[in-house]
Structure formats: structure tokens, C-alpha cells
């Protein structure tokens, strides 16, 4: 009764076991050891947690980086942008951000922890049967099965490849992932960002993750821009007002011209047109610098003394010594 093939005979054990519930050996003998779960002997390159409920590829890639980036960015958003935007805009900003964040995290975890559609490897009986079917000639010499089998799908020829690791002909659209060492149905790709293969069973979670992540990123980006714009409006908007009314900050703060609130009617410099004011302030002629930074000082024996009584024209030809002498003489003549 030790023959494990007798396990198949009991229909109750077969019919009710969904490969998830442990069953006693059908011979009626309870194993004194703890019954092992199938995940403990799973041949692929996967890691299992929570007694087989959660699975990951053993090469989980940069999943921690992905999670870290999402949490840090969102954390900064909620800490710094949300309080300001709640005051200035609406309380729905953090609500929408929160919903998107939860959606992103949940779909990411589902993509990472869900079985992507792994095909269990063929049992030895099956593998032998497949080889026997192929090797119909009855040759006694062992010959490995041919690598492809052609079938007709909707009147189109499709080649099925034989997987030497899993010992079976792969169904259409199935591919063997070398990182996880599993055949995966409707294999899309192995994504290092989520640390798992993307296949038939988790493609929808993956798609939901990338779409919601793009919404979350755009939303956070938009909120940050709005935040910065609102803060800088204090500067930008204010000065736009000054330019349009040909005022200075100093005049505005002191209220030099405005007798009533919001009116600049007392300003003598305004051109009474916003457009003209803007043109004049922003596009008017640029006056030259008056301080002559690079001009040479006169030599020490002829100091350039300017007393309060003299009036020197401001734009003398500066390097002209004769001119200086002339002016000096003129100055002396005036005071004489």
C-alpha cells in the first residue's frame, strides 16, 4: 500500500482536492510528518511567502526601488504640496491623490505577487508519453524529441516548440522565462521593475499599474506646478500690475499716488493705457550706465577736484587732458 500511484484511485481525494487543501494519504494512513505543500518543492526559480499565498520571482530586480520611488514622491507630495493646495484650492486634491496612490500600490503588488500563468512541468509519465508518440518508428535508440510541432490555428500554421526544461510542447503564445525558469502562458516580458514575469494572469494588473502610475505622476506634477505658480504669483502677478500701471514697488507700498484703493489716478507718469505703459517700461530705450566703471583715473599731480560751486558738464571727453586743463582754467576763472 505504499505505492503512491494508489493516490489516484480515490475519487474523493481527487475530486475535492483543489491542489490547495492538504489531504491525508488515501490508503487511510496518516503521515506522521507534516504534510508538505507543493510550493516547497516547486522546481522553478521563485520565492514563496505566506505559506504559498504570495509568490515572487527570485530575481526581484528593482522592485524595492520602484516601491521606494513611489512612496517617497507621494510622501513629499502629501507633506509639502497638499497643505498649501488645500488652503488655496480645494480639499479634493489630497483625496484624488490618495485614491490614485492606493490604486498604484495595490496594482503594483498584485502584479508582483500574482502567478503570471506558470505552466507546471510535465510529470515523467507525460514526458515519456510525448516522446513515445513522437518516436513512432519504434527505434530502440534514444532520440530527443524534435523541437517543433506544427498545428493549424484558424487556418494558419503555428509552430509549437518543445521545452526541454518543462518537458512538453509549449502551447501557443507560451514562452520560457530564463530568469524564473518557468514556462509562462501568453508571456509578455519579465519586468524587473515589478520583479516578476508579466503573462496571462497578471497582465491586466500590470496595465492598470502603468496607467494609474502615469495618472498619479501627471497629477503630482500638475499640483507641483500649480503650487509653484501660486507661490510665485505673489511676485509675478504683482509686478505685472506695476508694469501695466507704470508704478514702482516703492510707490505702491507707500501709496504715493493712489488715494483710493485700486486706483492709480494720481500717477503723473502713467500713459493712461496699459499697453503703452507696458511698452514704455519694458521696451523703451535702455539708458546707458553713468558710472563709467572702466574709465581711467587722472594722474596724481592733476587731481580732478570738483567743488560744489563748479558745474561741470557730465559728459566730458574723459581721456582728453587738454579738455581737463581748459575746464580747470574755466573753474579758476569763475571763482576768481
Amino acid at each position, binding site marked *: 500500500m505504499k505505492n503512491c500511484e494508489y493516490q489516484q484511485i480515490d475519487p474523493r481525494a481527487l*475530486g475535492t482536492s483543489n491542489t490547495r487543501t492538504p489531504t491525508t494519504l488515501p490508503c487511510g494512513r496518516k503521515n506522521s510528518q507534516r504534510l508538505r505543500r507543493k510550493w516547497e518543492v516547486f522546481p522553478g526559480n521563485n520565492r514563496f511567502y505566506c505559506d504559498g499565498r504570495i509568490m515572487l520571482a527570485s530575481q526581484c530586480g528593482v522592485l524595492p526601488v520602484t516601491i521606494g520611488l513611489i512612496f517617497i514622491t507621494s510622501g513629499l507630495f502629501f507633506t509639502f504640496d497638499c497643505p498649501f493646495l488645500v488652503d488655496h484650492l480645494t480639499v479634493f486634491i489630497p483625496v484624488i491623490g490618495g485614491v490614485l496612490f492606493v490604486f498604484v500600490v*495595490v496594482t503594483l503588488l498584485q502584479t508582483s505577487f500574482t502567478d503570471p500563468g506558470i505552466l507546471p512541468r510535465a510529470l515523467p509519465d507525460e514526458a515519456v508519453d510525448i516522446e513515445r508518440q513522437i518516436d513512432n518508428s519504434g527505434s530502440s535508440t534514444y532520440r530527443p524529441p524534435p523541437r517543433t510541432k506544427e498545428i493549424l490555428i484558424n487556418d494558419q500554421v503555428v509552430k509549437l516548440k518543445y521545452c526541454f526544461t518543462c518537458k512538453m510542447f509549449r502551447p501557443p503564445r507560451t514562452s520560457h522565462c530564463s530568469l524564473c525558469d518557468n514556462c509562462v502562458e501568453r508571456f509578455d516580458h519579465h519586468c524587473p521593475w515589478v520583479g516578476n514575469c508579466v503573462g496571462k494572469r497578471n497582465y491586466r494588473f500590470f496595465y492598470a499599474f502603468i496607467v494609474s502610475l502615469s495618472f498619479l505622476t501627471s497629477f503630482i506634477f500638475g499640483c507641483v506646478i500649480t503650487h509653484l505658480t501660486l507661490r510665485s504669483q505673489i511676485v509675478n502677478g504683482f509686478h505685472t500690475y506695476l508694469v501695466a500701471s507704470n508704478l514702482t514697488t516703492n510707490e505702491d507700498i507707500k501709496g504715493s499716488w493712489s488715494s483710493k484703493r485700486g486706483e492709480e489716478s494720481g500717477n503723473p507718469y502713467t500713459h493712461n493705457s496699459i499697453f503703452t505703459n507696458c511698452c514704455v517700461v519694458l521696451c523703451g530705450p535702455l539708458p546707458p550706465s553713468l558710472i563709467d566703471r572702466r574709465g581711467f583715473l587722472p594722474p596724481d599731480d592733476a587731481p580732478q577736484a570738483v567743488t560744489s560751486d563748479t558745474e561741470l558738464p557730465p559728459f566730458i571727453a574723459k581721456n582728453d587732458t587738454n579738455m581737463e586743463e581748459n575746464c580747470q582754467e574755466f573753474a579758476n576763472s569763475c571763482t576768481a
Partner: protein
Amino acid sequence: MATEFHNLQELRHSASLATKVFIQRDYSDGTICKFQTKFPAELDSRIERSLFEETVKTLNCYYAEAEKIGGQSYLEGCLACATAYIIFLCMETRYEKILKKISMFIQEQNEKIYAPRGLLLTDPIERGMRVIEISIFEDSGSTSSSSSGSSPSSSTAQ
């Protein structure tokens, strides 16, 4: 064709596994789950062709229903998407419900049709939906096996 009718209990104690037959997938309609209805030669002496084909066709119908794309599947999918798929933690999917029905169907077929003929169907889900495995048992020790005290180790151990 001497068919000796047993029930499953007797089968367990007296029969030994002779061989297994694997019914492969039929991909002519794409990737949907469908099994070939070609009658294997090994079962020629064990079961009527019509019974076998009926079983496989019914299984194919069950799987087609599970994978059917329609109003109910869309509703289930959209509801799941809206709840970020958390609803799958509380709710059984339509596919899982139909898999349970299939399991009951196979058990019933085994009890009524296959076990009396010394055959046993294995649920395809146990084999990764790759094959329907049919185990063929040879009757060793035959009619005297009805006694419960039959020594099982004598001739049945493999």
C-alpha cells in the same frame, strides 16, 4: 471484451495501474482550453467510443463557458478593475465556479462510467490543464477481490 464491473473501492484494493493515456490539447481554435476528441487506441477494448467522446465534449463545453467573453465576464472584469482587483479576495471568479462544476462532473463520470471499466479520469487542473490523464487499471486477483481482507501487497505492488 471481458469487462468486469467493479466499484471504486474494489478497484483500489485489487487493481494495478497498467498504463496511462494522455488526451492532448486541441489548439485548432486558438489558445482556449479544448481537448482532442480523437479516441485513443489503448481504450479501444475498455470503453465505448461514444461515451468517451461525450465526456470530452462535455468537458470542452464547460471550459468554453468558463472562458466565454460576454456581458457577465465584462461586468466582472470592470467591477474588479474599479476596486483595484481587491474584490478577488472576497469573491470567487466565474472561472473558479465552473472549475468546481467540472470537478464534480469528473467525479460523477468516474463513479458511473469509468471506474466500472477499470479506468480513472484525472481532472486536467491537476495536470496544469495540459492533458486529460486516463489511468488504465489491470485487474489482478480479479473476482476474489471483493473481500475486504484481500492481501493488497501480494500482487498489486508495483
